[in-house]
């Protein structure tokens, strides 16, 4: 569908708030936790980036908050540097892979950086019982303060070691579920801390956007379709396949949903996802192509 950029608000030098309105008609309803994929046409390529919808379900517009990523993910740079009000953008209908877990009586929300966005949509759920801890860099404090509700059960942590995560996780009652969203290093740390405190995987829910940070270029051979494709330093494997005209399965584009898993026939993947278990990672026979790359110069996939 085509949406028009209706409003741009600068929250910090690297964080902006965009409002997207339908060119005609009304928007599909997006519930708490939903995201949209924007197709941003850059010079010679299209970036497909997923962003959480922070506006209320049924609102007339979709609102998203975007951090400008230096490396790769050129779409966010375009939104910051070139997007202008009135610009029409191709947007895929919303998907929801991160609804608040139904069996939780209390939600412990833990986010870092731009991982703040899915939980902003949770605020629209009436009567949601939650405690939210958000971690951010000091220079973004003002932007996050503007986005976070001013409530006793919402805490913004800036600076190193501001949050004692181990103590927080060890103090939660048995009817609490943990929801996580943030950059890869944050997710890794939070998951390891939760595991150490004895949290079962069934009570941990996670979403990560913007996990594709780029890296060394490599070559991928697709055994079934016979393609050989070069993956550039500022491109994800998924982006590269799409640029070659292929349509591999994908949903979250952030290493969380499991949709884009492909079998690895040769070469060693560099895993950056939060979907595969430690055992599956160690087996090195599958890769989440939206965020993971290669440790070897070449990778052969069954696709």
């Amino acid at each position, binding site marked *: 569908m085509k949406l028009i950029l209706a409003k741009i608000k600068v929250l910090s030098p690297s964080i902006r708030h965009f409002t997207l309105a339908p060119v005609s008609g009304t928007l599909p309803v997006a519930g708490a936790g939903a995201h949209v994929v924007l197709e941003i046409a850059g010079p010679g390529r299209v970036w497909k980036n997923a962003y959480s919808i922070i506006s209320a379900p049924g609102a007339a517009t979709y609102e998203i908050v975007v951090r400008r990523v230096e490396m790769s993910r050129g779409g966010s740079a375009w939104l910051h540097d070139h997007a202008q009000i009135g610009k029409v953008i191709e947007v895929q209908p919303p998907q929801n892979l991160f609804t608040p877990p139904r069996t939780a009586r209390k939600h412990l929300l833990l986010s870092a950086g731009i991982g703040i966005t899915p939980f902003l949509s949770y605020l629209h759920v009436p009567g949601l019982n939650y405690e939210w801890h958000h971690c951010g860099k000091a220079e973004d404090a003002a932007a996050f303060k503007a986005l976070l509700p001013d409530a006793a059960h919402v805490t913004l942590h800036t600076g190193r070691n501001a949050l004692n995560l181990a103590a927080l996780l060890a103090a939660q009652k048995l009817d609490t579920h943990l929801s996580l969203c943030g950059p890869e290093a944050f997710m890794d740390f939070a998951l390891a801390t939760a595991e150490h*405190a004895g949290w079962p995987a069934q009570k941990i829910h996670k979403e990560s956007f913007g996990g594709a940070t780029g890296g060394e270029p490599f070559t991928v051979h697709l055994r079934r379709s016979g393609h050989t494709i070069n993956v550039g330093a500022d491109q994800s494997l998924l982006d590269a396949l799409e640029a070659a005209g292929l349509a591999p399965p994908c949903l979250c584009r952030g290493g969380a949903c499991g949709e884009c898993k492909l079998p690895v026939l040769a070469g060693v993947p560099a895993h950056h996802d939060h979907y595969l278990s430690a055992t599956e990672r160690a087996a090195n026979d599958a890769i989440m192509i939206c965020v993971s790359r290669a440790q070897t110069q070449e990778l052969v996939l069954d696709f």
Partner: protein
Amino acid sequence: MGNKSRPIYAPFKLDVTGRAHLIVTNLAEPPLELAEGFDDITVWTVKTIGRGIPAPAAPGLRPFRAVAELLPQLAVRLAQATVGLRLYAIGSEAFIWDAFNVAITAGLDKAEIFVHHAGPLVRRVYCTHCRTMIEDVAADITPCPACGAHLFVRDHFSRRLAAFMGVIVDAEVPGEVPAAEALTS
């Protein structure tokens, strides 16, 4: 055999991913050797020494006089406990699934609960005729103390009721009740 509604129990073992472990049993002793190397283990038993006086407690051990006292205390304990706890219920199927249901109500996930069938081969039977629960049935045919029906104890187990289904055995020809046999599983 092969009855889908009959739960299958894995051998008892403590879950290494847990931070604390609570073992509850309706037996006088938990029928197991507790593994070394686990710090935080509590065991709740049902044990009396004559006339309903609870046995003295050793460290980490809390004897109750009756299951009817243990289960409400389990709800209280779980409401205070923090994530990282694993619950193990050991004993009769009626007891372990009652404990399981208390734990689910308290917010535990199935992955945090382990049930293990042990002790005498007795079943709680649900009279499908008058909905009475009959405790400690040891034979495959039993009279219902409430409505007098002769019930055949099926292998069909309801986890919600923590009971086996008892169906009228002489529905076709009233009074024709086959001889009862001891339960073997």
